């Protein structure tokens, strides 16, 4: 038997949220998915709406537990991971 799947809460904002069609969800991620970039690749394969949202992963920003992270950041220990477009506040 392989390692346990990792349970995560995912949150989406702005057009990432609109393309996926929901603001958040709970997922179980396979053990082989270890970084933010790998998580985006795994999500993109979940369906058309996800493929659309993550079609250009270079423009998508991510946060783990409400702090900005880079694509190569490990997701081990994360509780909540958010994906969103570049920010336009201010």
């Amino acid at each position: 038997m392989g390692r346990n799947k990792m349970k995560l809460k995912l949150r989406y904002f702005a057009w990432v949220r609109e393309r996926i069609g929901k603001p958040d969800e709970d997922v179980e991620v396979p053990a082989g998915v270890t970084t933010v970039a790998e998580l985006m690749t795994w999500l993109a394969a979940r369906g058309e709406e996800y493929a659309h949202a993550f079609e250009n992963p270079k423009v998508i920003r991510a946060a783990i537990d409400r702090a900005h992270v880079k694509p190569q950041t490990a997701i081990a220990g994360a509780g909540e991971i958010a994906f969103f477009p570049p920010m336009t506040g201010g």
Partner: protein
Amino acid sequence: MTTQTIVRIQTEPFDTAAEAAAITRGRTDAGAVVTFTGICRGDENGVPIASLTLEHYPGMAEAEIERHVAEAIERWPLIGVTVIHRFGRILPGDDIMMVVTVSSHRAAAFAAADFLMDYLKTRAPFWKQVEKTDGKIWVEAKATDDEAAGRWAAPAKHQAAE
């Protein structure tokens, strides 16, 4: 003396002058107050807009702004900092956000306000959507905002240590 800081994320309008007065009230060490107010324009790239809607990431928006306020306090001798950012639907002419920085002298107050604005634009989790006559579109991030934030990169001695 500790720096007085206020960070608020809210839907309600705010009064920049009242916030600036509140943070300096009763103090005699404040020699300079800089205030910045971001206002909703009536057009997006020359096309009239009906309204602006700001989405944010509750919890992270406060945390991210507080991180940058803490960094500003480390870099400049500040007496007080107030940052208020609205979310929800905002009409042309209405205020979107404000920064107040207070110091003994103007250089620190100006620099800290400039620094905070550059970082808020590129790092605080807010997204603007504009409503035009033919529909709603998400505002695209500007490369010039990233370049502006890049001006404040860590001092050279920190980079050399990496």
